[in-house]
């Protein structure tokens, strides 16, 4: 950094390329490993996994009880586990309680069930304010929480990751798990949104 006054600033893309090419040449990174990892996160992980967990909990009372008691095991039983999902806690929205999740220190998020977090989740405005005034932050998501509903904010850590079990939309009696899963949005599982309404 000492010579930064005499040279033009280095574009960040070049810094990344320099690191990646050096690590590959030294054998620290195997050929194709970076592409394989990125592919998993772009194509396999994402909110569609969490939506399956939610839909099963809505249709199977025993699974729901297990999910709320031991989220890690219940989620793993559907095949979703691993990096940044090693210890999962599921919190349930009810007519009396609305839950919302943040990581005030950085960006901890349940990767196996939700994939990578949206940019706003990782930024200072969300992290600083949702613990201070959650109702006004939720209003910026067009989510108005009535005064008689308690709002609980869960601060993630590098060890514990949270998933919100949203309320099942009205008018969905008898729907299949697949039909229900299609109503579950990413934000409804973070707590900054609700599910889509039944068509």
């Amino acid at each position: 950094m000492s010579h930064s006054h005499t040279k033009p600033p280095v574009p960040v893309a070049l810094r990344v390329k320099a690191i990646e090419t050096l690590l590959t040449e030294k054998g620290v990174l195997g050929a194709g490993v970076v592409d394989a990892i990125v592919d998993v996160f772009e194509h396999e992980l994402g909110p569609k996994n969490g939506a399956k967990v939610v839909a099963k909990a809505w249709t199977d009372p025993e699974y729901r009880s297990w999910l709320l008691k031991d989220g890690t095991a219940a989620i793993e039983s559907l095949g979703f586990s691993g990096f940044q999902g090693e210890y999962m806690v599921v919190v349930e929205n009810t007519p009396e309680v609305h839950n919302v999740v943040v990581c005030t220190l950085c960006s901890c998020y349940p990767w196996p069930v939700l994939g990578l977090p949206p940019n706003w989740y990782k930024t200072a405005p969300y992290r600083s304010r949702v613990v201070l005034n959650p109702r006004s932050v939720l209003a910026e998501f067009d989510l108005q929480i009535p005064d008689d509903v308690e709002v609980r904010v869960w601060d993630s850590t590098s060890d514990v990751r949270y998933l919100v079990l949203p309320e099942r939309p009205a008018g969905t009696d008898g729907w299949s798990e697949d039909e229900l899963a299609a109503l579950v949005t990413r934000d409804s599982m973070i707590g900054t949104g609700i599910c889509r309404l039944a068509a």
Partner: protein
Amino acid sequence: MNSIHDIGGMDGVGPLPLEENEPIFHEEWERRMFGVKVALAIEGVYNIDETRWAMERIPALRWLQSSYYEQWVDGVTRSLLEKDILTQEEIDARIDILRKQGGE
């Protein structure tokens, strides 16, 4: 440790940067940085607490002006230097080569 990353409860940080139909990565270098950092974790080069500690030592003013993945670049670079996997000299030399290749 109390430092700039510990911002829960702070006022005046600005509005939420909400974006419709947001891509997983906004730039190709973000995609590469993500893959490199996770690959290094899988290889056992560092654990999650080490990577966070590396980012939490970014100077406060720089941290505030950096994007999320820029903070990853700073943190991963620090880890690689501290673990003697790369040196600043070889990174700088590689950047010079890449610049020339890019016609800069």
